[in-house]
């Protein structure tokens, strides 16, 4: 088994006066594909936002490739090879598709390899070429999600975190995205993603974490989680 690429321990995170995460943890091995599961408001997005530096934890430690990153500003963390695709895609609406994607390689380390990486993501998502000059806000949800993932890949990440990539998309588009994410993973990028549909999440991921009310309540291999009565209780109310 390859080494640990990301490890977060004991994370307490507050939004305003309100504590959202309690002693949360997340450990990911190099090359893995890990799903983050949990009902609405469980704190899944907050966990990823803390790892990528958008939020600062009140307590806890985060190491990425062996170095502590908790408390670093987000733009420094992405430069180290940890990319984050936000919930609801969050493209720059008035910039074109091409401008959006190019900005993904803004960090100095990624900028030198920009053209080669652009060719690679265009091969993965042909839509990027077709819609290059169009403002991002004029794209459909599925197309926007592809642009958002492509933009994240432009940073040349070792670890890519994607927040609800399939939210609100047609089954055909979901299948397409699942294929793309598998391929990205096969080509060596470690992946953490959030998905509320247990079956979909665990068919794609090798391992999963389950959050409930701001705490990690379960973790394990996908097959184990699928059989777990605890998962059944949380997600099916049974």
């Amino acid at each position, binding site marked *: 088994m390859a080494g640990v690429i990301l490890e977060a321990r004991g994370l307490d995170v507050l939004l305003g006066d309100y504590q959202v995460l309690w002693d949360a943890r997340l450990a990911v091995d190099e090359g893995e594909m890990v799903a983050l599961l949990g009902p609405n408001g469980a704190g899944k997005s907050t966990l990823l936002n803390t790892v*990528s*530096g*958008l939020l600062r934890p009140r307590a806890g430690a985060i190491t990425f490739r062996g170095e502590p990153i908790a408390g670093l*500003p*987000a*733009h420094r963390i*992405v*430069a180290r090879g940890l*990319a*984050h695709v*936000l919930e609801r895609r*969050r*493209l*720059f*609406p*008035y*910039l074109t598709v091409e*401008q959006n994607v*190019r*900005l*993904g390689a*803004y*960090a*100095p380390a*990624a900028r030198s390899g920009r053209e080669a990486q652009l060719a690679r993501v265009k091969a993965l998502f042909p839509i990027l070429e077709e819609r290059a000059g169009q403002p991002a806000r004029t794209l459909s949800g599925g197309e926007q999600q592809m642009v958002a993932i492509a*933009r*994240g890949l432009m*940073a040349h990440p070792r670890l890519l975190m994607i927040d609800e990539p399939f939210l609100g998309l047609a089954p055909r588009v979901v299948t397409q995205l699942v294929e793309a994410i598998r391929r990205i993973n096969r080509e060596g990028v470690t992946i953490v993603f959030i998905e509320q549909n247990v079956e979909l999440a665990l068919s794609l991921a090798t391992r999963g974490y389950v959050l409930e009310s701001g705490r990690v309540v379960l973790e394990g291999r996908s097959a184990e989680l699928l059989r777990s009565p605890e998962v059944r209780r949380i997600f099916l109310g049974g």
Partner: protein
Amino acid sequence: MGCVYALIAAGLSLIFGLMEVVNFAHGEFLMLAMYVAFFAWALARLDPLVSLPLAALALAALGWATYHGLIRRVLGGPMLAQIFATFGLAVFLRSGAQFLWGVDFRTIKEPLLSGRLSVGGVFVGLPQLAASVLALGAFLGLYLFLSRSETGLALQATAQDRQAAALMGIDTDRMFALGWAIGSACVGVAGGLLAMFFYIFPEVGGAFALLAYVTVALGGFGNVPATLAAGVIVGLTEVVAGLVITPAMKYAVVFLLYLAVVLWRPQGLFGRF
């Protein structure tokens, strides 16, 4: 004159578009730029056209310092704190100017450019014409910078989604400071140009700032190209109203136009809401 208004308004619009902070000291920044031009002339015999880069740089530094010294501290705070911060700065700068330089009207004599030019029967002052052309040039430069350069795109990205921009590796704090520097440099250029033919006194910024707010609101907040169109509209309205009705009424007509547009399209003529 429309082009000069547009340039003043562009500075305001850039800062607002970037971080939703209205710089109520924008007019005072303009006043300071005019004094920079004045003292460059009075002390070193530099014509405003020659000292233009100096005015731009001085104001860029002022904008940068304002961001770091003042704005950054109130950013997370309530809206009211932000309003009072720049409003207080405006009062401070105006009284400071009165204290240091008195309330006298000053003018720059023997400018490099003077006289008038007849364009199709209408007389246009040569300094005014030069100011318009240079302001237009500066405006186009700003537009090209924002829409073509890597840093310009990063500024736009920061304006459109600050968190997503940070995740691209953009240092959004640096972009904010840069936005303040560039936005203030715009009034630096505008002030240097106005100093060629306008009276210079501590209160001079007020009227121009008011027109700048109107121009920005007309064009739609945070939309730089639209600001140029709005600036030209405001400038033309002013001239036409001054000729057709009476010069005393020209600002009344401008504000009437503003009210009409705001009632009809609250987001501005070219707004993006």
